[in-house]
C-alpha cells in the first residue's frame, strides 16, 4: 500500500506531467481542427462536457500540489542535512557528491570559505557553507501560480455561465432572482489611467433599504450576487411615440438602441405599422470625444423614416424633444443610458487573476536572485575517516565548483601533511 502510494506520488509529482497534458490537449486541438473552424471553442465545449478530459486537465494543478509538497519536503531535508541531522539520500539533494579518505580531523576551512564570501556553520562533524539567496520561496510562488492558473482554466472551462442583461438607468439591476437594486445613474467619463481611457460607473441603490449603495466600475469587475458584472457595450433605451397621417392614433414603444460608436445604425419597427425608424448618433465635431453624447445629458439622434423599403425623409430629433413634418410626429419623451452587461458566474477568474499576480512576483524575485546572488551550498561531513563532500549551485556553478575543488584539495593536502 505504502509502495503504491509512493509510486503514485512520484508519477504525480513528475516534471513531465504538464508537458504531457498540454501536449495531449494540443493533439486534441489538432484533431478537432480537421473537423471544424471553431477549434478552440469546440475543444472547450468538449472539456466542459467530458469528465475524462476535465480530469486530464486537472492533472496539472494536482501535479503542482504534489510538487509543492515534494519541493517543500526537499527543502526541509536540505535544511536538516545542512545542520548535520540528516545524512541519507545526499545524491538526490546535491549536484555533486564525492567521498575522500581523510585523517581524523576536518581541517579548518572556515577562514578560507569566509574569505571567498561563504557563510559557514560547523555542527559536530559537519561543516556547512553557503552563500546567495535560496530560490525556494520563488519556486513556491511559481508552483502556486501554476496551480492557480490551471485551476482557474479548469473552473472556467467547466463551470462558467453568463447572462447578457441590459442595465438601464432608473430600472432595477436585472439579476436572475430579481433582487437587484435600482440603477441610479450610469456615468461615462474620461479617465487618465495608464490603460483605460474611459471610465464607466454604474451606481446602484440597494434593494434592501439601509444597506450602502454600490458602484460598479470597469476593471477589475465587481461582483454582485456571486456574478461578475462585466460591462460590454454602450447603448440607449428609448421611449418612442409616433404618429403618422394614416395612423392618427399613433403608437408607443420601448426599445433598446445599439448605436455606439457614433455612425452605427439601429432600427426600430413601429409596432402594427409598415413604418420603421433608423436611428444613429452623428459623429461629434472633431476635437470632442466620440462618446460625448453618452457622457452629457443631451443627445441628438439622426433618423431616417422608412415605410417598407422606401425612405420617406430623414432628420434629427433631440432626446426629450420631438420632430414634426407633413403630419408625421416622432417624439422621444424619455431617453436613458444603457449598458449591455454580462453577468458572469465563474470563480475561475479569481484564480487566473491570482496566478498572474503570483507569476509576476515570482519573475520579479527570480531574475535578480539568479543574476546577482544565486544559492550555492557545500557540505563536508566527516565519518570514520571518510569525508563526504557535497556541492550544489543554482548559478555561477563554475566558480562555485572552483572553490569546492579548492576545499577538497585542502582537505587532501591536510591528510598528506599528517602522514
Amino acid at each position: 500500500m505504502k509502495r503504491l502510494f509512493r509510486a503514485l506520488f512520484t508519477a504525480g509529482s513528475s516534471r513531465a506531467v504538464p508537458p504531457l497534458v498540454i501536449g495531449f490537449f494540443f493533439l486534441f486541438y489538432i484533431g478537432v481542427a480537421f473537423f471544424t473552424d471553431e477549434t478552440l471553442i469546440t475543444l472547450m465545449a468538449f472539456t466542459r462536457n467530458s469528465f475524462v478530459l476535465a480530469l486530464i486537465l486537472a492533472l496539472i494543478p494536482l501535479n503542482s500540489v504534489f510538487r509543492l509538497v515534494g519541493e517543500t519536503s526537499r527543502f526541509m531535508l536540505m535544511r536538516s542535512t545542512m545542520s548535520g541531522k540528516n545524512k541519507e539520500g545526499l545524491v538526490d539533494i546535491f549536484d555533486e557528491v564525492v567521498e575522500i579518505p581523510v585523517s581524523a580531523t576536518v581541517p579548518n576551512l572556515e577562514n578560507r570559505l569566509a574569505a571567498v564570501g561563504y557563510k559557514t556553520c560547523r555542527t559536530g562533524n559537519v561543516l556547512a557553507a553557503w552563500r546567495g539567496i535560496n530560490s525556494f520561496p520563488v519556486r513556491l510562488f511559481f508552483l502556486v501560480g501554476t496551480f492557480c492558473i490551471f485551476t482557474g482554466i479548469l473552473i472556467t472551462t467547466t463551470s462558467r455561465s453568463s447572462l447578457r442583461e441590459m442595465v438601464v438607468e432608473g430600472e432595477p439591476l436585472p439579476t436572475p432572482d430579481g433582487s437587484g437594486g435600482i440603477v441610479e445613474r450610469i456615468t461615462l467619463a474620461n479617465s487618465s489611467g495608464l490603460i483605460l481611457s474611459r471610465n464607466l460607473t454604474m451606481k446602484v441603490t440597494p434593494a434592501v433599504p439601509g444597506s450602502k449603495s454600490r458602484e460598479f466600475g470597469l476593471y477589475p469587475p465587481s461582483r454582485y450576487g456571486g456574478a461578475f458584472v462585466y460591462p460590454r457595450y454602450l447603448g440607449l433605451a428609448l421611449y418612442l411615440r409616433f404618429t403618422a397621417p394614416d395612423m392618427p392614433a399613433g403608437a408607443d414603444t420601448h426599445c433598446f438602441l445599439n448605436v455606439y460608436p457614433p455612425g452605427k445604425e439601429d432600427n426600430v419597427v413601429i409596432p402594427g405599422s409598415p413604418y420603421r425608424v433608423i436611428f444613429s448618433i452623428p459623429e461629434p465635431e472633431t476635437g470632442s470625444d466620440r462618446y460625448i453624447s453618452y457622457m452629457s445629458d443631451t443627445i441628438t439622434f439622426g433618423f431616417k423614416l422608412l415605410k417598407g423599403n422606401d425612405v420617406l425623409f430623414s432628420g434629427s430629433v433631440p432626446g426629450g424633444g420631438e420632430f414634426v413634418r407633413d403630419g408625421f410626429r416622432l417624439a422621444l419623451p424619455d431617453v436613458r443610458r444603457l449598458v449591455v452587461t454580462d453577468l458572469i458566474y465563474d470563480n475561475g477568474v479569481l484564480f487566473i487573476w491570482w496566478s498572474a499576480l503570483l507569476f509576476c512576483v515570482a519573475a520579479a524575485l527570480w531574475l535578480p536572485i539568479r543574476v546577482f546572488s544565486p544559492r550555492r551550498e557545500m557540505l563536508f561531513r566527516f565519518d570514520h575517516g571518510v569525508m563526504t563532500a557535497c556541492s550544489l549551485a543554482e548559478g555561477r556553478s563554475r566558480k562555485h565548483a572552483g572553490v569546492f575543488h579548492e576545499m577538497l584539495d585542502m582537505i587532501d593536502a591536510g591528510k598528506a601533511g599528517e602522514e
Partner: protein
Amino acid sequence: MAETIIETNGLTRSYGDICALKPLDLQVPEGEWLSVMGHSGSGKSTLMNLVGGLDRPSDGSLRVGGEDLLALSEDGLARFRREFVGIIFQQHHLIPYLTAVENVMMAQYFHSVPDEAEARTALERVGLGHRLKNRPGELSGGEQQRVCIARAIINSPKLLLGDEPTGNLDNKSTIMVMELLKELRAEERFTVIMVTHNQEVAAWGDRTIYLDDGVLVREERMNS
C-alpha cells in the same frame, strides 16, 4: 632508477649558416634539476626552445616525456606545450593590464578553462596571497618572477624550463625565487632545466652542463 624524461641524439639547430646547436646528445632523468651554463650566444636558449617545443630542430632526434617532438604535428606540439611544459623567462612577459590572478588565469585559459580559486591558491603558494589584485607594474621584479612561477606551474607541467629567470634579480630575491622553486619541486616533483650565468644559481641544481658554441663541453654533478 628514474625514467629518462629528455633524450636527444645528434640534436641540431641551425639558422642558415649559423649553427646554434651542434649535434648534441643529452639525457635528463625524470625529477632532475639541470642547470645549463655557457657564455652568451652559446645556444642555451636554443636548446630550451627545442626542448620546450617552441622550436623545431634541424636534425637529430628529440624525445621529451616519451613523445617524439619531431613527429608531432603543429597541433600536437601545441598540446605538448600546453600540457607538459612550464616556462619562465628572464623578462616576465606578463600582460600589463591584467592583475596577477588574471595573468595566471590566462594560462589556465590557454590550457583548458580558467578557475579562479585554483589560480589564487597557486599565487598563495608562491607567497603572493596579498598581491592578487595588483597589476604587474605594481609588483617588484622578484614578485613578478614569482607570478611567472605560479603561471608556469598552474597547469601541473612535468617539465619546468627557466631561461635565466633570476637574471634581473638581486641576490636576496634570487635566493627567494630559488627556494620557492625548490619547495615546489619537492611537492610537485617536476623536472627543472634552468639556464643561468650565475654559478651560485647553478649550484642549486643536481647537475650542470656547460655549452660552448652549441657544443656540450663539460658536465658537473653537484653533491648536496
